[in-house]
């Protein structure tokens, strides 16, 4: 079967009929049209369609200029010629022509803002809860204040590194927590504080001791036993050291102040003492002053609470009293924390102990075998490959949602610009 070869597409034929082809394309089309019957038939069909469409005429409109237009024309005052886009183009027209795009961009922007601001809104919600606390009943507010001023338990477990120090972690977990004096009733706290002052000057005692021992593991175990005997606890503990090097343990220990001397004697017996230091800071006057200020603040709080409960007045006055009450309660909380911290420091002395292993370096005479080196290299290579793949996956997962979001935001504007550019190029 013979097929006719068409160098001209049907749409080009149509464009030729509409006078939309360039001169050279039009010439080629005309030449092809002269010899191709199929294309001639298509041209005839297209012309027939246009001819049919021309049959639909409409009645002529009125020839005279309508009154409304004549009036508008008479009232028209010419503005500045060729105004800038900003002055000339109203938002109503802009929005009217591109309402869909504007609505879409607005919706996306709102979604982005909501996503970004959600954590802030949550924080604000939490803050507003804190503000409304001031409008609670006095009993409820006092209960909340008590909850806030209770300190969290001390951190017993210290960060560990190295291979042989799991026992230290277990040891730290086993230590009893110090008695929390502030958790009890207020009267108990006051009597304890008065006892502290009545028993003599309030001294915050700190000791520092540095030891070197040949039996590092034994010294560490003895340290645990000493602490247990004197009812102390570990404030902080760091231990480290690799194979073939000296090991070191540094710990901040808290022991009852009256047990400090006995504890120090036992710790110093664990090895050879390299250095030792003790300091004492007298905080009696500060403590007494703090307690006096605290008492005054509590009296002020009571008076303000009575005022709120019993007196009536203007709303502005009530609000002013509430603000003042809020400020006084803030001061009380701050001073309570300061007082409690000072009491703990006085009751428990601090011992900064450093134990270092008396290490003798040994010459390594056996070099690593070639097989081990190859095996290590292979393991390192495999680990590097896995790390690389996991890193790439993590990177893609971390930036993927952002890329999707920005892709969605920029897709339509980019497509709009692309279409415009293509249209301009084509025209």
């Amino acid at each position: 079967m013979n097929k006719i070869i068409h160098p001209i597409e049907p749409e080009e034929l149509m464009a030729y009929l509409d006078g939309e082809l360039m001169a050279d394309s039009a010439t080629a089309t005309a030449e092809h049209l002269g010899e191709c019957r199929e294309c001639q038939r298509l041209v005839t069909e297209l012309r027939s369609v246009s001819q049919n469409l021309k049959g639909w005429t409409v009645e002529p409109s009125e020839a005279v200029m309508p009154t409304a237009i004549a009036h508008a024309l008479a009232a028209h005052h010419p503005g500045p010629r060729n105004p800038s886009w900003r002055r000339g183009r109203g938002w109503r027209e802009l929005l009217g022509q591109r309402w869909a795009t504007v609505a879409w961009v607005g919706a996306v922007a709102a979604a982005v803002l909501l996503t970004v601001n959600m954590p802030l809104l949550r924080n604000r919600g939490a803050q507003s809860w804190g503000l409304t606390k001031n409008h609670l009943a006095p009993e409820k507010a006092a209960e909340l204040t008590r909850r806030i001023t209770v300190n969290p338990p001390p951190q017993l477990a210290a960060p560990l590194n190295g291979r042989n120090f799991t026992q230290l972690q277990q040891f730290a977990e086993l230590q009893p927590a110090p008695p929390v004096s502030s958790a009890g009733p207020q009267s108990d706290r006051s009597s304890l504080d008065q006892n502290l002052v009545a028993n003599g000057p309030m001294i915050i005692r700190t000791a520092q001791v540095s030891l070197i021992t040949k039996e590092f593991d034994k010294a560490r175990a003895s340290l645990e036993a000493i602490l247990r005997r004197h009812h102390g606890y570990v404030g902080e503990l760091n231990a480290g050291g690799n194979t073939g090097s000296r090991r070191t343990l540094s710990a901040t220990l808290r022991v009852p102040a009256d047990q400090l001397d006995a504890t120090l004697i036992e710790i110093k017996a664990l090895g050879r003492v390299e250095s030792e230091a003790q300091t004492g800071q007298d905080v009696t006057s500060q403590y007494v002053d703090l307690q006096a200020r605290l008492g005054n603040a509590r009296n002020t709080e009571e008076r303000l609470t009575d005022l709120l409960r019993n007196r009536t007045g203007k709303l502005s006055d009530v609000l002013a009293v509430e603000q003042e009450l809020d400020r006084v309660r803030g001061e009380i909380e701050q001073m309570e924390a300061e007082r409690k911290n000072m009491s703990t420091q006085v009751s428990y002395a601090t011992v900064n102990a450093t134990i270092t292993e008396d290490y003798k370096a040994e010459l390594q005479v056996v070099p690593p075998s070639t097989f081990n080196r190859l095996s290590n290299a292979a393991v390192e290579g495999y680990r590097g490959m896995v790390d690389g793949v996991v890193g790439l996956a993590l990177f893609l997962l971390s930036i993927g949602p952002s890329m999707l979001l920005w892709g969605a935001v920029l897709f339509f504007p980019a497509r709009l610009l692309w279409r415009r550019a293509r249209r301009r190029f084509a025209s």
Partner: protein
Amino acid sequence: MTAISDEALIQEFQGGSQPAFEELFARYRGPLYGFFRRRLNNEQRAEDLMQETFLAVIRGSARYQPRSLVRTYLYGIAMNLLAAERRKQFRDSPPGQDTSEPETHDDSDAVIWLRQALAKLDEPEREILMLREYEQLSYAEIAELLRLPINTVRSRLFRSRMALKGYLAPDRGAGEQTPARVADVAREMKLTRAEGEAI
């Protein structure tokens, strides 16, 4: 004597010349009225919207910029007014009532047949076809007006013409197979062209 271009006229009108506007009005009164009349079923509304188009030109004469043709500018305003009118009709009309079928005063059987065939086309393709055939806009002007690539305008125009030919053919009543046949014609001719290039 060379006629003054539309662009020169509107620039004169921007400068305050009323005769320039009257000349523009005389040139586009009929085409704009025909534009609305063929798309709406209400003669009076067509007249009103034609007037509103010119009122918009008067009110926004300062906004016109010479980078686009006056013809495109005018039909752009007309398209916006038409879209607003259709939305209004859609809101106001009872459900199920079709208000989009235009009727002219002395429709012959052939014109009724033609309108029914046009109504079968997809809305975007029908609009392109009517802008080309009745408003005599070029492909580039249609592309600018409808914010479409010029090649899209050309291909849609071809499809709509071929589909309309199928709907108007006396031996093809419903024309269900017409769009398929349009695609077949285009595909067959493109195929043979590709084969020719390969040879």
